[in-house]
């Protein structure tokens, strides 16, 4: 049974990657916007800024003003990627050292708290609720459940089949709903960096008086 579920996890991961590739191809089919203006400094500096300093809360008013949400988001996503690594460690039967398991438990429990907090914010904050659709809630719940099961799996192997089953569902859901931002985040940030980098807007210049 466990072997079948392991294969299901791997297959669903492949299906997810293929579906995301199709989505990218579809996005590319919309064609390219012609650029007429001369580039001021090239886009690379903008891309480096977009993935580096530009992600820091002091560089963005939105993050600075919502620091708890920003931190919750960072912890949540770190926990998700950790849970994914743990999932593949279980699928490929990699033995993990005890100190790593302890660290994993801390990270997963913190991520879970942040996940629930973000879900509560979406449920109870009228502005966020108004811009949310069922997919937003479902994506949050399915990821939170995965974190719960990953956490339980660090204590008992009896939860492993359920963790594999949920991971399979989650992978299949990735291209369907908002979890696709695991890919589109990088795509959008690159475009953001290119756009403002090319115009010489980012990274911001420091002016000496």
């Amino acid at each position, binding site marked *: 049974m466990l072997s079948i579920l392991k294969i299901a996890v791997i297959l669903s991961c492949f299906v997810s990657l293929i579906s995301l590739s199709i989505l990218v191809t579809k996005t590319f089919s919309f064609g390219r916007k012609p650029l007429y203006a001369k580039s001021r400094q090239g886009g690379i500096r903008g891309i480096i800024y977009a993935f580096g300093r530009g992600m820091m809360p002091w560089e963005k008013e939105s993050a600075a003003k919502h620091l708890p949400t920003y931190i919750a988001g960072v912890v949540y996503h770190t926990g998700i990627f950790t849970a994914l690594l743990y999932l593949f460690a279980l699928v490929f039967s990699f033995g993990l050292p005890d100190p790593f398991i302890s660290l994993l438990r801390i990270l997963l429990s913190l991520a879970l708290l942040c996940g629930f907090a973000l879900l509560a914010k979406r449920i109870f904050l009228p502005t966020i609720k108004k*811009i949310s659709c069922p997919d937003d809630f479902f994506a949050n719940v399915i990821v939170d459940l995965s974190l719960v099961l990953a956490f339980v799996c660090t204590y008992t192997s009896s939860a492993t089949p359920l963790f594999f089953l949920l991971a399979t569902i989650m992978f299949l859901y990735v291209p369907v709903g908002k979890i696709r931002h695991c890919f589109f985040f990088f795509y959008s940030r690159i475009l953001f960096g290119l756009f*403002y980098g090319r115009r010489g807007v980012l990274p911001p210049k420091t002016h000496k008086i």
Partner: protein
Amino acid sequence: MSDKSDKKDPLEAKIEQLKQEDLDKVLNVFRHKINREYAAYLSSCVHCGLCAESCHYYLTHQDIKSLPAYKLSLVTRIFKKYFSFIGKVAPRWIGAEELDSVLIQEWIDTLFGRCTLCGRCSLNCSMGINIPYLIRAARGALAATGLVPPGLQSTIDTAVEKGNNMGISKED
């Protein structure tokens, strides 16, 4: 009764009389304004709402309709409905919506009336979505069908005709 109908806003009357071919035209122009960058942006919003305070309209009115993510959602609804598979199969699930006269009215009110295309939301977006460009694409689709607020259109017409939006002649 006829007095009342005579005083009716010409744009409102135009919206009421919209036919399917008009809506198709809006969609067609919108489709042609979308390039691969825009398509990526339209698939990226996670509805975090962190963009709220970056919009001066939202800061002034504290109205959900001024929230950049909400303004963007007006555009993504259409993109999801007509240009994504899930939007066709399960529109409500992902917030996709058909283009009709009600949504056209909201596009006009919100996308023309609650955005100056300043780009602050874009700089503050966690994903880096270029919201003003997407709003501009939607505005372009409306303009191609003549669905522009009359006050705004007359300013543009004056600027094109006289060279300035105040209608001041060269002699003056």
